C-alpha cells in the first residue's frame, strides 16, 4: 500500500515538475523575453509588400481618355517543370510559334519569358489548360484607347513603363506615382492576411488642352491629303489665338502607340523640324513696315514683271509677272520682288527686331521637349541681300509652332501668347496646378494687327489663297511655298519644297488659328493648290463643331 502511495506521489511530483519546467519556460518566453520573441515572430510572419500604383491617365480638354493603364500578366515557364508541355497547344494559346517556344525552352535557364503583358482573356485561356511549369507575373500595360490620336503630343512609354516621348516623358515621375506599401501576415500554409494599408490608391492624371474631336478631324484630313500629295510629311496645328492653347497638333505619317514603334517615329515634327517659312513670313515684314513706316500702306510698288536682280548672281522671281501693285495687292499676290523692295525701306535692324518679337529664332516656351528654336542670325551677321531675302521667308528657319504663334498674334490683336499644351494636373481629383494663359509681349498695335488682318482677308478673297474660301465665313490667311536647302548640293533644291498655309477665322473675331504644312509634296508644290485646300477641308469640317455660323446660311426658325 505504502509502495503504491509513494509511486503515486512520485508520479504526481514528476508531472508537477514537468509542468513546472514548461510553465517556467512559458514564463520566460511569454513574459520575461516577450518583446524579443514577439519581434522574431513578427519578422518571420509579417512582411511589408510594395505595389506600384497604376500609371496616371492622360485626358484631352473634354476628359476623353488618351492614355490609361491596367494590370496585365507576363507568361513565364520554369524549364525544369515543363516536361510534357504540349508545345503545339501552348503555341496556339500564346500566339508564339512552336519553334520559338522550343528554342526558349532549350536556353539552359531555370525560367524563361514567353510573352509579356498578356491581356486577361489570353491569361484565362492559358490558365484553363493547366500547362506544366507555366506561371505568370503581374505587370502594367499602357493602353491608348484612341490609338494614334494625338500620339505625338501624348507620347509613348517603353516596356519598363518609363515615358519615352511627349507628355508621357515630360510628366513621367508624376504619372508613375508612388509605390503603395502594406503589411501582410503569412501563416504556415502561406496564406496572407493584409494587416495594414498605409495609403489609399493615388489617382494622378494630366489634362491636355487638346480637343480630341478637332485632333481627329485634322488627322483624318491629313491622312486623306497624303494620298493626293504623296508628301514626305504633313502637319497641322490648331490653336486658340487668345489663350495660346493648342487644340490639335497632328502629323502624318503617324503610328499606333499600342503597337511596336520605330524609335525614329517618336519625333514630333511640329516641334522638332525647322524649315524656311517662305511667304507666310511676310506678315512679319508687313507688320514691321506698318509699325515703323505706316505710309507704305498707301504706296504702290513696281514688281519688275516677275524678275529682279538683287545682286550680281542673285535674281529673285515672282510666281506671276506683276507690274505696279498696291501694298495690299503685293501681299495678296505674294510678290517677293515687292517685299524685297519693302525690306529696304524697313531696314535690317528693324526687320530682325520684329522677327525676334514675333518669336522667331527662340523657343516658344511650350511645355513639350524636343523643340528646335530655328535659325535667325543677328542683323549684324546678315549679308548684303539678307534683308531682302529674309523679307519673304528665306535665309531663316522656324518650327511650325513659331509660325502659328505669329499668326495668332495678328489674330488676337497683337499680343504674342505662350503656346500651351497642358491644361492642368490632378492628384486624387484635386487640381494641383492649372496652367494659365501667359502673355509674352505685345508685338504690334491693335491698329497694325487690324490692317494685316484685312490684307490676309484679301489673300483669301482674291489672292493666292482663294482655295481656302468658305461661303459665309471671312477667312484670313496666307500661303507660303519655300524651296528647301539641299545640304549635299549646298544650294536650294529644285525639287524639294515646303508648302504652307496659315490662317484664322472668323477673321473679325477669330475662334481658331490653323497652320497646314506639306513637306516635300510630289508633283504640284505651290501652296495655293497644295496646302490651301487642306486648310479649307479642315476648316469646313470644324465649323459646326465650333458652332461658327456662316453668315449667309439658311436657318429654319
Amino acid at each position, binding site marked *: 500500500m505504502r509502495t503504491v502511495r509513494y509511486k503515486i506521489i512520485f508520479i504526481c511530483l514528476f508531472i508537477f515538475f514537468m509542468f513546472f519546467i514548461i510553465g517556467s519556460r512559458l514564463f520566460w518566453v511569454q513574459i520575461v523575453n516577450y518583446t524579443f520573441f514577439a519581434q522574431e515572430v513578427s519578422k518571420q510572419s509579417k512582411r511589408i509588400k510594395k505595389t506600384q500604383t497604376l500609371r496616371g491617365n492622360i485626358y484631352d480638354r473634354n476628359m476623353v*481618355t488618351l492614355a*490609361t493603364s*491596367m*494590370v496585365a500578366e507576363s507568361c513565364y515557364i520554369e524549364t525544369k517543370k515543363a516536361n510534357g508541355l504540349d508545345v503545339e497547344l501552348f503555341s496556339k494559346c500564346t500566339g508564339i510559334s512552336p519553334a520559338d517556344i522550343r528554342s526558349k525552352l532549350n536556353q539552359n535557364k531555370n525560367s524563361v519569358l514567353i510573352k509579356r503583358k498578356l*491581356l*486577361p482573356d489570353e491569361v484565362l485561356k492559358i490558365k484553363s489548360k493547366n500547362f506544366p511549369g507555366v506561371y505568370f507575373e503581374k505587370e502594367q500595360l499602357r*493602353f491608348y*484607347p*484612341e*490609338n*494614334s*490620336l494625338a500620339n505625338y503630343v501624348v507620347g509613348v512609354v517603353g516596356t519598363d513603363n518609363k515615358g519615352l516621348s511627349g507628355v508621357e516623358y515630360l510628366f513621367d515621375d508624376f504619372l508613375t506615382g508612388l509605390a503603395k506599401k502594406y503589411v501582410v*501576415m503569412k*501563416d504556415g500554409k502561406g*496564406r*496572407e*492576411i*493584409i*494587416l495594414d494599408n498605409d495609403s489609399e490608391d493615388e489617382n494622378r492624371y494630366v489634362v491636355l488642352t487638346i480637343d*480630341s*474631336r478637332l485632333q*481627329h478631324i485634322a488627322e*483624318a484630313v491629313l491622312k486623306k491629303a497624303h494620298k493626293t500629295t504623296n508628301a514626305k510629311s504633313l502637319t497641322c496645328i490648331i490653336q486658340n489665338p487668345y489663350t495660346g492653347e493648342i487644340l490639335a497638333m497632328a502629323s502624318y505619317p503617324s503610328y499606333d502607340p499600342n503597337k511596336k514603334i520605330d524609335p525614329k517615329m517618336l519625333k514630333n515634327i511640329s516641334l522638332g523640324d525647322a524649315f524656311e517659312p517662305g511667304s507666310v513670313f511676310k506678315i512679319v515684314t508687313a507688320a514691321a513696315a506698318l509699325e515703323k513706316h505706316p505710309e507704305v500702306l498707301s504706296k504702290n510698288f513696281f514688281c519688275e514683271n516677275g524678275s529682279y536682280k538683287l545682286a550680281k548672281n542673285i535674281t529673285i522671281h515672282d510666281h506671276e509677272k506683276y507690274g505696279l501693285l498696291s501694298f495690299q495687292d503685293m501681299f495678296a499676290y505674294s510678290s517677293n520682288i515687292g517685299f524685297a523692295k519693302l525690306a529696304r525701306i524697313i531696314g535690317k535692324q528693324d526687320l530682325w527686331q520684329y522677327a525676334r518679337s514675333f518669336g522667331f529664332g527662340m523657343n516658344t516656351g511650350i511645355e513639350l521637349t524636343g523643340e528646335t528654336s530655328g535659325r535667325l542670325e543677328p542683323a549684324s551677321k546678315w549679308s548684303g541681300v539678307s534683308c531682302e531675302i529674309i523679307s519673304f521667308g528665306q535665309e531663316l528657319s522656324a518650327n511650325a509652332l513659331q509660325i502659328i504663334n505669329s499668326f495668332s498674334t495678328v489674330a488676337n490683336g497683337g499680343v504674342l501668347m505662350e503656346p500651351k499644351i497642358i491644361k492642368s494636373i490632378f492628384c486624387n481629383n484635386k487640381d494641383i496646378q492649372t496652367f494659365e494663359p501667359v502673355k509674352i509681349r505685345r508685338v504690334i498695335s491693335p491698329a497694325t494687327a487690324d490692317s494685316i488682318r484685312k490684307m490676309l482677308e484679301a489673300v483669301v478673297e482674291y489672292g493666292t489663297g482663294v482655295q481656302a474660301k*468658305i*461661303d459665309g465665313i471671312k477667312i484670313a490667311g496666307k500661303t507660303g511655298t519655300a524651296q528647301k536647302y539641299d545640304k549635299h548640293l549646298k544650294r536650294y533644291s529644285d525639287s524639294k519644297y515646303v508648302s504652307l498655309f496659315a490662317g484664322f477665322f472668323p477673321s473679325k473675331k477669330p475662334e481658331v488659328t490653323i497652320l497646314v504644312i506639306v513637306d516635300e509634296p510630289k508633283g504640284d508644290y505651290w501652296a495655293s493648290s497644295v496646302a490651301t485646300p487642306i486648310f479649307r477641308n479642315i476648316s*469646313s*469640317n470644324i*465649323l*459646326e463643331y465650333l458652332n461658327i*455660323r*456662316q453668315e449667309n*446660311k*439658311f*436657318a*429654319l*426658325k
Partner: protein
Amino acid sequence: MRIHRVHGANKVKRSGVYFKWSIIIIIFGSFYAWQRIESRKLGYKISEINGRILSLAKENKYLTMKIMDITAMNNLEEVAKKRLGLVTPKPSDIVVMEELK
C-alpha cells in the same frame, strides 16, 4: 472529531472555489482562443474578398478599356462609313434650327 469534520468541510469548500475559478479561467481562455481563431478566419476572409475586389476591379478596367477601344473615334468613323454607309456632312448639308423666342 468535530474539529476534523469542520476541517473537511473547509477542504470541500476550498476545492469548490478552485473548481469555479478553473471553470472561469477555462471559459475565458476558450473565449480568448475562439476570438483569436475567429479573427484569423475573418482576416483570411477579408484577404480573399480583397483579392476578389482587386480581380473584379481588374476585370472592370479591362472591360472599360474594351469599351474605350470600340468607341474610339477612328473605330466609330470606320463603322459609320463602312458598315452603315454614312458620310461626313458638308457645311452646306447642315441646316441650323434656330429657337423661336
